[in-house]
């Protein structure tokens, strides 16, 4: 990226080849929309060129890229009404020692359900889990992007994960109540 910043724009092609898949999957899991995700990846690379002077030598490229991606994502969601967001719940009241509903997570069907559950999380929690688990960033990098401490990131990740677990289990709970 330093070479791109210094005027060798064609080097951006190398960065595209290395990172576009990761960005595409980040946006796909954020939006659930393939076409929109391709547009958003393109927008990140457009912004990389536009704001290339803001890249600092000591800064890590992945963190800078995801900071741009996060802004692009915020613009996208700011322009669109939220479709389905699971209700915020009082997490501390939820039991944590439930029987495991997740034994089958290896199965494609369960992973598909997990993807659906992610899409029902509030945008901020979904983004945090994706940055942590598939963005390949450390807590410190995420903390720098979010402007908080690494400890605060961990707390938020815990909450997001617990919320995800509740959304993931919701169909089973409904079935139990209905039975």
């Amino acid at each position, binding site marked *: 990226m330093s070479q791109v910043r210094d*005027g060798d*724009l*064609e080097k*951006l*092609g190398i960065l*595209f080849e290395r990172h*576009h*898949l990761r960005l*595409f*999957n980040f946006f*796909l*899991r954020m939006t659930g929309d*393939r076409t929109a*995700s*391709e547009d958003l*990846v*393109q927008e990140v*690379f*457009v912004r990389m*060129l536009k704001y290339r002077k803001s890249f600092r030598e000591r800064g890590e490229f992945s963190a800078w890229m995801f900071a741009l991606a996060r802004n692009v994502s915020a613009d996208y969601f700011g322009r669109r009404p939220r479709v389905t967001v699971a209700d915020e719940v009082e997490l501390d009241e939820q039991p*944590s*020692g*439930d029987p*495991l*509903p*997740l*034994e089958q*997570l290896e199965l*494609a069907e*369960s*992973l598909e359900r*997990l*993807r659906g559950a*992610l899409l029902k999380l509030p945008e901020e929690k979904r983004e945090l*889990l994706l940055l*942590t*688990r*598939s963005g390949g*960033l*450390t*807590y*410190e990098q995420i903390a720098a992007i979010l402007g908080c401490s*690494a400890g605060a990131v*961990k707390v938020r*990740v*815990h909450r997001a*994960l*617990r919320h*995800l*677990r509740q959304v*993931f289990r919701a169909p089973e709970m409904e079935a139990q109540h209905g039975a």
Partner: protein
Amino acid sequence: MERDDFRPEDEAERRLWEALARLPEEEPGPGLRRRFYSMLDEETTAAAAERHPARSGGWRRRLLTLVTPPRPAFAGGLQWALPALALGVLLGAFLPERGAAPPQTDVAALRQEVGSLSRLVALSLLEQDSASERLKGVSYGREVGPSDPRVLDALLAAVADDPNDNVRLAAIDALAGVAGRPGVQQRLIAGFPRQESPLVQIALVDLLAEARGARPRLQRLVDDPQVDPTVRDYLRRRLERRT
């Protein structure tokens, strides 16, 4: 602090945490790569023009800049602006007086004129020095249709000889509708070992693997030592997937 520091509270959350990292990755469509390199070429050309304004001159280039849309990736219907303008002018000249129905022969002639004009623009753009102009040429060529013999020939020549990988990739994409023709397959396969970019070779494999009748020709490439081993491996897997 590393990501591994995180400790989920119980077994259920641990499974969920691990599953999040195992979500299967999906591939974007080929249009993303094409749009990215088109954008990059334009930005690179614009940056070069800023550094060396004199080199970006030339009456032919300036004329083409005037008559073609500046950003084909976002142009949408604009890329038909020139043919539409030509259609308007020709309609004015050809249409009979009010009340009389236009003869069928005149409409056919108009259509032919517009098609010729688009083809002319496509062929001219494909001869430009700038890679982004040639990309526009490929885009026009796709609109005209690779079934036009001169456009088809120009697109095949672009795949074989264009110095820019992105133009070659776009031209391969534009040939999707005619990849089943034996003549087209023959030329693409003949030039295959000369392609230096594995990306271009893989795009050719993807194009031909879906085309009817190309399998025996592709099979020969699997054993061709001139072909990059990674590409040969990809080709082998691609052919196995089709069986």
